[in-house]
């Protein structure tokens, strides 16, 4: 049960949020140009990192905003949160 600091609302209980998977996977602007392999890379293949992962969360039961989180998946410790379009604060 994490406490997640929504960049808009501040610290809230885990249960107010939804997980959105690996962050910074940009949907190809021209999918039709891609080979089946390349499309599969975007669609299915994941880093599934053990360690520091950049991931998406949605404050779905609060302000409904999506944002990014950097979290160590081997300890669940959250290192930083940052808005969509921003770079993770090191």
């Amino acid at each position, binding site marked *: 049960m994490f406490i997640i600091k929504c960049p808009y609302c501040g610290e809230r209980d885990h249960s107010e949020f939804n997980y959105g998977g690996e962050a910074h996977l940009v949907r190809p602007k021209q999918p039709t140009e891609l080979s089946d392999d390349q499309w599969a890379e975007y669609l299915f*293949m994941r880093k599934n990192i053990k360690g520091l992962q950049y991931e998406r969360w949605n404050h779905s039961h609060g302000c409904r905003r999506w944002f990014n989180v950097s979290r160590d998946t081997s300890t669940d410790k959250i290192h930083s949160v940052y808005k969509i379009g921003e770079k993770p604060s090191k």
Partner: protein
Amino acid sequence: MKKKYSIFALVKNSLSYHENWQRAWRDPEPKSRYDAVIVGGGGHGLATAYYLAKEHNLKNIAVVEKGWIGGGNTGRNTTIIRSNYLWDASAGMYDHALKIWENLSQELNYNVMFSQRGVMNLAHNQHDVRELKRRTHANRLNGIDCEWLNVEQVKKFCPIINCSPNIRYPVMGSTLQRRAGTARHDAVAWGYARGADAMGVDIIQNCEVKGIKRNGDSIEGIETTKGFIKTQKVGVVAAGHSSVIANMAGLRLPLESKPLQALVSEPIKPIIDTVVMSNAVHAYVSQSDKGELVIGAGTDSYISYTQKGTHEIVEGTLKAILELYPIFSRLRMLRQWGGVVDICPDASPIISKTSIKGLYFNCGWGTGGFKATPGSGHLFAHTMAKDEPHALNEAFNINRFISGDLVDEHGAAAVAH
């Protein structure tokens, strides 16, 4: 040669106060090279080694295990075994496993306590009924035993289920696979380990893989905490950690590793003689031979390797249990734990070659791998030995994610198995 286990052996050994039992398996140091190395000493990995040695007479085989054998999901799951899957590919593969289960204790001379007490999947709404009947028909035409029970029959087969029409999600029927059931999880790992060891397989514990050495597109060996091991064939059966190994080889897999939790009650006298699962009312339960109720449900949604899930999952699971079995309310949770399960987008496993020659993956079993252990090992051994899939695991190749030919078993997997 291993001495046979039997009641007579027990009596005989009792005379010498059990001081003359053989080791179940050796504790060797790794050799410098092997014909094949299995990464991961869980049930699937040990079974793979066992069948490689037994059916493909590879003798120079090692199983390397980061911790202790059977210490991952093999020793953490709720031991449900069934084969009532929807799609032909799954049904074929899981029933192949079930058939091996039926004689596994004798095959291994190790009592894995496979108990065919039946598995029920309850329906709670129109959609469930439609989908479960669809599965029942598919199973029947695939030659897999599976019956549809109406509410009266459910009540009769498992009287403690709350079949009142007035609960929030009344039971509307159920499937029943009588050949399905449970087994003793540790025994499966130990039995395969003992069997593999007897055929000369080196089981190397506390040996973590640190890197995978490639020469262009083929495998040269693995770096481990016990040194470099040369080999041309590496079979990775690392469950939740499959992606970690894949990353060492520069591969990406369609996997997410998530926390799955289970719990047991304090032991009580026999109260439930079958396995009951429910999708809409999210939980499943059986009773161990020791008397503990063994309970589980779904995963958390986020990736984590901590082997810890959220309290809310446990609470939600027990909420469902009490909805179906109000008589359990005063029983007490003795122990709860978590594991890390690797889940594919189509809720089906990968038993496959990869783009790297000599590197094979057996992963993506999600929440339901235990039931497949013998079949998974058997098919993976074939795939590694022949460098091509067995007919029964062709559909579970990694390329399906490129072609789109998925084996979508979410219906079967909606609740952790």
